[in-house]
C-alpha cells in the first residue's frame, strides 16, 4: 500500500516536471537543478503544485534545496508531511 502510494507520488511529480520540460530526461535520482534551467519561477510553481496536488502545506523549515533536488526527495517530503496533515 505504501509502496503503491509512493510510486504514484513520484510519477505525479515526474509528470509535472516533464510536462513543463518534455525533453528533460528525469529519473527519480536525477538532480533537477543540474539541468541548468530551473529558475525561481519554476521552483515556486513546483512548490504550489505539490501543495495543491497532495493537499498539504510545506512548512518553512522543509523548504530546503535538498528536499527538492530529486523526485525521490520530493516524494519523501510528501510522504513525511502527509501523515502529519492527516493526523494533525
Amino acid at each position, binding site marked *: 500500500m505504501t509502496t503503491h502510494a509512493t510510486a504514484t507520488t513520484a510519477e505525479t511529480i515526474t509528470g509535472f516536471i516533464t510536462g*513543463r*520540460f*518534455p*525533453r*528533460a530526461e528525469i529519473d527519480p535520482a536525477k538532480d533537477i537543478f543540474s*539541468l*541548468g*534551467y530551473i529558475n*525561481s*519561477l519554476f*521552483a*515556486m*510553481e*513546483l*512548490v*504550489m*503544485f505539490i*501543495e*495543491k496536488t497532495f493537499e498539504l502545506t510545506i512548512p*518553512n*523549515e522543509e*523548504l*530546503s*534545496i535538498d528536499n*527538492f533536488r530529486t523526485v525521490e526527495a520530493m516524494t519523501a517530503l510528501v510522504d513525511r508531511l502527509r501523515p502529519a496533515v492527516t493526523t494533525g
Partner: protein
Amino acid sequence: MTDQLTALDRATARRFVDEHIAPFADAWDRAGAVPEEALTRIGEAGLWAPFLPPRLGGSGTDMVTLGAIHEEVGRGCSSVRSLLTVHTMLAWALRRWGSEAQRDRWGPELAAGRVLGAFCLSEPGAGSDTSGITTTARLDGGAWVVDGVKKWITGGQRADLFLVFARGPAATVALLVPRATPGVTVTPIDDMLGTRASMLAEVSFDGVRLGPDALLGPSGFASGMVLTGTLDLGRYSVAAGSVGIIQACLDACADYTSRRRVGGTPLGELPLIQAKVSDMVTDVRAARLLLAEAGRLKDAGDEATLMATWVAKYFASTAAARHASEAVQIHGANGCGTGYPVARYYRDAKVMEIIEGSNEIQRTTIAGEAYRRQVP
C-alpha cells in the same frame, strides 16, 4: 453611519471609491500625498488587507474579489492603489510565509491599517534586475544586521513596516524592519512622473540590528520564493489597477465626447472617436477577464496563476498606457490641463509599464513560457 464594508465586493468598493477617493484624487496628485484622513477611512472600510483571515482581522476575501477591489480603487486613484499594492504584498507574504508569532504580532495591525507596510526591493542600481541588489543582511551573534539603500519605495514616506530584501549569508532573504528601528532613514522622493501621491521614498539602512524573528520565511534555497510570491501579488494588484485606469479612461471619454461638439456634432458621433472608444470597451473587458482568470487560479492554489498574472499585468498595463494616451488625445487641449483627470491617468499609466517587472521583463518571461517545451 459607518464606512465598515461588512461584505466586501466590487459594488461596495465602487461606492466607497466614488464617495471617498475619486473626487479627491486630482488634489492628492497635486499635493503629492494621500491625507491621513483618507488612509484612516480606508482602514475603517476594511480595505487594507481583507484577504487576511478573520483571526488576523481580515474578512477572508478571495483573490478574485481582491482584484475587483483593487481595480475599483485604481479607477479612482492610482496613488491609493499603489499604497494598497505594497501593503498587500507585505501582508500576503506575512500570511504565506510568516511564523505564528509574526502573524499574531503584525496581522491585526496590518488588517486594520494601524501599521502600513511597504515593499523594499529596488535600489539605485537595481530595479527589475533583482539579482543586482547590494543591500546586505548578515548574522551577528543571532541578530540580523542590514546595510544598504532602497529607492523608489512606494509608501515609504508613510509606512511603519518595511519588507526588505537583502543579500543574506546564502541567498536573498526577506526581513521585516519596523521604521522606528535605529539606523533606518527615510528621505522623501517628490515630483515623480506618475502616482505622485504615493509618497515614494529612499530608505537607508545603516547597521540596522534586528532580532532573529525579523526573518520572514525560509533562508537559503527557498528564500527566492518569498520574492517570487510577493512580486506575484504585486503584479496582480498592478494588473487590477491598470484595468481600473482603462475603465476610468473609458468613463471620462464617453462623458466628454457626449458633450463636446465640433461643428455642431458631438465628438462621440465621429467614427474616429468611436474607434478609439470601442477599443477601450474591448480591452477593458479582455483585461478584466485575464485578471479574473489569474485570481481564480490563485484561489484554487494552482501554480498556473503565476504565468496568468504575468500575462494579465502585461496586457492590462500596456492597454492602460495606450488608452490613457488616446484619452488625452480625445480631450485635446483640455486633456493636457488640470480640468480633467485624463492627464493624471496618462502619467499614472506609464508607471504601470515599469513597476513590478518592466514590460520588457514581462515579455521575456512570457516568451520563455512559449519556448519552455523546447528546452533544453
